[in-house]
C-alpha cells in the first residue's frame, strides 16, 4: 500500500477547465502519490474523464498547473507526456495485430524492432495474452481487448497509467476478476494508477485512496474507509453506500463534536465533519448502525412503513415523528425480533455511528 508520505507523482494544482462558459472542472487540487492506486469516483458527467484528459494532454486546462514529479507538464502535447492511457472503448488499432498494437509506443520511443517485440512479449505474458499475440483486435472478446489496451499502455513503462472506466464494458463476472488483476498488476509494476469509475464498489475495493468528485469539484479525498466512515458532506455520505440523513438542529460545535437536537427533542452529541456549523444540519447514520430498541428511552421513535427481506439482512423502513423516513438494516438471526408493518419502534445508534455533515 502506498504511504501518504510518498513522493507526489501527479500534482494537480488548482486546475480549472472551461468549455465555453461551462465549468467542467472547478479549482481541482489533488496530490497523487508515487506508486498509489488512486481513484476518481463520481457520477456520470461530473468531470472525471475531463480531468484524466487534462493529465494525458488531450485537453488544455484553463487555469492552474499539472506537475509530474515536479515538472509542469500542462503545456506539453500528449506525445511528450510520460503517461499512458487505457481508453474507455480501448481504441485498439484495428489494422494491427495484438503484438503490433503493444509495440506501437515502444517503436515511437525509438526502441529497435527486436527490443520492442521482446518487451511486447513480456507485457502480453503479464496480462496472460501470449497465445493471442497474432490475433487482430476484431478477433478478440471484450475482456481480451481490454487486456490488450492495458498491455499497450503498460509496455512503455509509463510513470503514471491513466484508466478511464476500463471495466465498464465488461460483464459483471469478468469485471470482478479483472478488478483483482488490475490491483495485482499495480503492485507488481509499481506504476502509479489513476483510475476513473462511477462505480463506488469498484472504487472501494481497489483503491489506496479515492477522490470523490461531483459537479467538477473535489468533494473529499481519502481511503475507502475514511470516505465511508467519515464522509465530509451530504453528497459523499449519500453517494458512497446507503445512509440515513436525519434533520437536526445544532446548538453548538465544540472541537470535532457537535451538540444537536434530534427530531423528537432528544439531545445528542456526535462527531462533526470539518466545516460543519451550528443551526440546521444533517446527521448521517448508516442503516447497519441503526438498531431497533424499546420505544421508551430510545433516541428516536418511528412507525414501520416497509419491510424488505434481503436474505441475510432485513431492511426496515420507518417514518419518524417529523415525517422523514429512516432505514435500519438488521440481521436475520434468532436474537432479533423483526417488527411488523405499522409497529411503533424505538431506534438507537452509538455516538460514533453518527456524523454531522457539511451541507
Amino acid at each position: 500500500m502506498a504511504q501518504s508520505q510518498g513522493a507526489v507523482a501527479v500534482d494537480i494544482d488548482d486546475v480549472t477547465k472551461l468549455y465555453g462558459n461551462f465549468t467542467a472542472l472547478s479549482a481541482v487540487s489533488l496530490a497523487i502519490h508515487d506508486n498509489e492506486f488512486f481513484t476518481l469516483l463520481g457520477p456520470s458527467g461530473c468531470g472525471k474523464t475531463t480531468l484524466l484528459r487534462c493529465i494525458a494532454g488531450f485537453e488544455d486546462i484553463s487555469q492552474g498547473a499539472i506537475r509530474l514529479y515536479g515538472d509542469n507538464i500542462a503545456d506539453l502535447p500528449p506525445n511528450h507526456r510520460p503517461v499512458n492511457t487505457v481508453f474507455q472503448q480501448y481504441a485498439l488499432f484495428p489494422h494491427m495485430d495484438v503484438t503490433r498494437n503493444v509495440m506501437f509506443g515502444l517503436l515511437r520511443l525509438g526502441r529497435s524492432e527486436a527490443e520492442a517485440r521482446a518487451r511486447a512479449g513480456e507485457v502480453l505474458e503479464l496480462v496472460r495474452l501470449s497465445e493471442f499475440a497474432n490475433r487482430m483486435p476484431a478477433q478478440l472478446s471484450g475482456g481480451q481487448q481490454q487486456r490488450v489496451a492495458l498491455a499497450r499502455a503498460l509496455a512503455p513503462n509509463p510513470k503514471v497509467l491513466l484508466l478511464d472506466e476500463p471495466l465498464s464494458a465488461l460483464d459483471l463476472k469478468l469485471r470482478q476478476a479483472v478488478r483483482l488483476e488490475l490491483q495485482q498488476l499495480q503492485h507488481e509494476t509499481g506504476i502509479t494508477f489513476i483510475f476513473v469509475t462511477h462505480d463506488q464498489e469498484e472504487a472501494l475495493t481497489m483503491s489506496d485512496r479515492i477522490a470523490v468528485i461531483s459537479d467538477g469539484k473535489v468533494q473529499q479525498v481519502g481511503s475507502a474507509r475514511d470516505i465511508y466512515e467519515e464522509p465530509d458532506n451530504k453528497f459523499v455520505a449519500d453517494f458512497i453506500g446507503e445512509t440515513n440523513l436525519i434533520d437536526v438542529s445544532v446548538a453548538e460545535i465544540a472541537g470535532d463534536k457537535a451538540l444537536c437536537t434530534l427530531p423528537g427533542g432528544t439531545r445528542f452529541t456526535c462527531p462533526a465533519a470539518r466545516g460543519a456549523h451550528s443551526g440546521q444540519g444533517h446527521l448521517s447514520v448508516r442503516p447497519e448502525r441503526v438498531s431497533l430498541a424499546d420505544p421508551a428511552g430510545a433516541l428516536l421513535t418511528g412507525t414501520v412503513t416497509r419491510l424488505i427481506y434481503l436474505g441475510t439482512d432485513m431492511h426496515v423502513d420507518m417514518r419518524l415523528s417529523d415525517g422523514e423516513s429512516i432505514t435500519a438494516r438488521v440481521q436475520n438471526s434468532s436474537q432479533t425480533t423483526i417488527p411488523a408493518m405499522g409497529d411503533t419502534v424505538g431506534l438507537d445508534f452509538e455516538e460514533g455511528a453518527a456524523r454531522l455533515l457539511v451541507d
Partner: protein
Amino acid sequence: MAGGIGSGPGKSARTYAGFGVPLILPAWLVIGIFLVVPIGIMLVYSFLTKEFRGGVIWEFSLAAYDQFFFDRGLFGDDPPEIEWTYILIFWRSIWQAGLATLLSLLIGFPTAWFIATRPAATRTIWLFLITVPYWVNLLIRTISMKFLIRDNGPLNTWLLDAGIISDPIHVVNTWVAVQLGLFYSYLPFMVLPIYAAVERYNFALSEAAADLYASRFVTLTQVIIPVVKPGIIAGCILVFVPSLGSFLAPDLLGGAKNFMIGSLIDEQFKGAAGNWPFGAAAAMILLSMVLLVLIFYARSQAKGEAR
C-alpha cells in the same frame, strides 16, 4: 400422416428455394442484358472483319488486334514489328489517368478530412457544395474549363494584370489542360468515398497514437491512412477508371497530340472512316486493363480481410 401440414423442415426449405429463383431472376436478367450481352457483342465484333462504310462483315479475323499491336502485320511476309502508335496512346492514357488520380488524392483527402471533421449540420452543406457543379453536363463543364484557361481567358488575364507573367501561358492543347480536365471531372469521386471512410474513423485512435508518443505525421501515416485505406482505394478506382477511358477532356482540351484511348475508340465508330472491329478490340484491351486494376484491388481487399 406423413407429409401433413408443416411436416418437417424439408417442406419449408423447398418453399424458400422455390421462391428464391423467381425473386433473383430480375437481377440476373439486368446483369445479363446490360452487362454480359454487350460485352459479348463487343468481344465478337473485335474478331470480325471490317466493312469500309462502318459495320462489320461476318468473317473471323484477327486483323483488329494485329493492327493494334503490330506494324506491317503479324501475317505478312516481312518479320513483324511492334506498332507503337496505339500502345503510346494507351500509355499516355495510363499516365494521364494515374496522375489525375494522384492529384485528386492529394487534394481530395484533405478536402474529405475537412468536411468530415465539420459539425454534423455544416457537413451536409459542404457535401452539397462539392456536388453542385456535377449537376451541370460534363460537356459544358469541359468547354467552360477551356474558356477559363485559354490564352485570353480569365486565368491568363488575371496573371498578366497582376504582373506575375508577361506573356500568356499556353495551356490549351497541352497535356496539362487534359490533366486539369480529368482532375476537375472526377474529383468528387475521390472526395466522397474518402469522406465516408473518415466519417466512420474513430478519433480516439488518433488520441491513442498521440498517447503512445506518435507525432502528428506518424499518426497520419501509420494510423489514419491505413484505417481509412478502403475509402482511399475506392476513390482511386473511381477516378482512375473513368479517367482512363475519358474522351471529352482529351478531345476538347488536349487537341490531336494528346489523344487518349477514349478518343481512339470514339473515332472508330464515327462515319465512314470508322473501323468497328478495331474499336471493339481497343475497347476490349481497355476493359482487360480495367479488370486487371479491379482484380488487384479485390485481392488486396481479400488480403486485408484475411489478416
